[in-house]
């Protein structure tokens, strides 16, 4: 047991050190960062964070990112719910192929889609809006939500559907009033994973936005100025992108594995 503690501790330390270093840097001034290395901030300062929260070109990046992530999560989960139910409860023409096709889109490299998406969303006039990014992220998030929800729905016995239909519930009534509460956990987990994968993606988000809808992750890549790299600001912006995930993760901690495994555990 003692050796397992050491393994776990060492691994956790390995995970936390780089994050600590980022937080550490975000609380330093640039003078201190580029000066001799210090293990903790000698003169802690919040000026990097103040800059982000007062400069609209910075904080709008967070607003944009949160907007497209929320739109995407909503679309993905709402569309995926009936589909996941269908996959879980019925056989129909092409079901296996369709299910595999969905998976293959979750696995498709974003780099392949960057250029065609750029053309597509320019053609339909959505380029540089949060809608473009929200829709583009559906490429991998809708399949992901279908797979996760299918896993959860298959865990609910079919007898419940049958009993409800014998008791005279109409399908929409049954689905909304009885079934959705039963798989509330699954919906939460699917939403969390859509949120997460949309939040962490950069390539498509950067390609589909120019100025108005630029997300924070894309703004961050441009902290180089005439005075050199603004490391403190970069670190502070980075820390702020970690926080949303760190906050919601507590609620889904017991389902994380199931979500990552596309509902297959």
């Amino acid at each position, binding site marked *: 047991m003692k050796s397992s503690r050491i393994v776990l501790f060492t691994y956790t330390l390995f995970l936390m050190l780089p994050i600590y270093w980022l937080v550490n840097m975000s609380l330093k001034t640039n003078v201190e960062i580029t000066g001799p290395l210090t293990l903790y901030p000698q003169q802690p300062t919040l000026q990097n964070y103040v800059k982000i929260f007062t400069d609209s070109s910075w904080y709008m990046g967070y607003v944009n990112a949160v907007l497209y992530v929320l739109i995407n999560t909503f679309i993905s989960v709402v569309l995926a719910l009936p589909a996941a139910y269908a*996959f879980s409860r019925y056989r129909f023409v092409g079901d296996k192929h369709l299910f595999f096709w969905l998976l293959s889109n979750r696995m498709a490299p974003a780099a392949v889609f960057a250029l065609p998406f750029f053309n597509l969303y320019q053609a339909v006039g959505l380029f540089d809006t949060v809608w473009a990014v929200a829709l583009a992220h559906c490429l991998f998030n809708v399949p992901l939500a279908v797979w996760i929800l299918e896993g959860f729905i298959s865990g609910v016995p079919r007898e419940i559907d049958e009993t409800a239909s014998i008791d005279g519930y109409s399908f929409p009534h049954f689905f909304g009033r009885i079934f959705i509460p039963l798989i509330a956990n699954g919906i939460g987990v699917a939403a969390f994973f859509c949120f997460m994968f949309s939040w962490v993606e950069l390539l498509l988000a950067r390609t589909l936005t120019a100025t108005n809808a630029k997300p924070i992750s894309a703004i961050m890549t441009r902290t180089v100025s005439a005075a050199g790299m603004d490391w403190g600001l970069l670190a502070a912006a980075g820390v702020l992108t970690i926080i949303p995930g760190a906050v919601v993760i507590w609620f889904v901690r017991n389902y994380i594995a199931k979500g990552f495994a596309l509902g297959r555990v």
Partner: protein
Amino acid sequence: MTSALNPKLGGVLDMKPYNNRAWFMVLPVFLIVAFSAVLPLMTVVNYSVQDTFGNNEFFWNGIGWFKELLDPNSELGGRFIDAMGRNFIFSFLILAIEIPLGIAVALSMPRQGIGVSISLVLLALPLLIPWNVVGTIWQVFGRSDIGLMGWALTEIGVDYNYVSGVIAAWITIIMMDVWHWTSLVVLLCYAGLRAIPDAYYQAARIDGASRWAIFRAIQLPKMNRVLIIAVLLRFMDSFMIYTEPFVVTGGGPGNATTFISIDLVKIALGQFDLGKAAALSLVYNLIILTVCWVFYTIMTHFENAERRAQT
């Protein structure tokens, strides 16, 4: 088939009704994914057989780009095959490190108490960080002037500079990926381990089984299913990796860490070489699709076998 993937429901599989009206429920998903996947891929196919000198004037080029792409002696083909080689080496190294390490950490996780929740949250944290921030974290961490790791390595006399050294760049990128994604393997394995009833361990204890015997006979078989998923996900995601190495090394030094994705974005959005980029996209996608199908088949077979074993 879908509940065939779920062994718990194995028994009711045969009762799943055949109903084509289920298509109506799938239709919205089908439409939005088709809009996002099929439509763009059609543009790609269209570009891949044409050449352009700019000004939106296109010429028919047939399978010219594909020939060039698969010919190691041409400029494009050489680049592609080199990048693909790097991708395979990278994915192989990633799997060779992350899978055993992930299993080891999963085995050392606490089984109950508040420690479980705390470890789960801490372990999952790197998975939720935007990929370019992951790149930034390691870009900073590895610098010898302002980063803890780079500074420490330089202090103890190691010549470490990921900007100019090929080996250092590879080590940085692999460490970054291990840092970023090993937790995924841990979480999956841990979920598999939790499904083992205590009675198995008690029986093993009575038999006086060694730690290794318990691992081989009880824990590993229970983790088989999740390990397949872990290998699938890690292979796929490491094969299409873009953002993290792009931020840290930008594909350098030279082309030492230029993976297919990085090269593709360079050709497509940097040089706007549409024909080349499109042909490359299709071949790249085809590789991914093939590997994905192989894993999917293995996964389904495996779960069907498990279901048969249970009934």
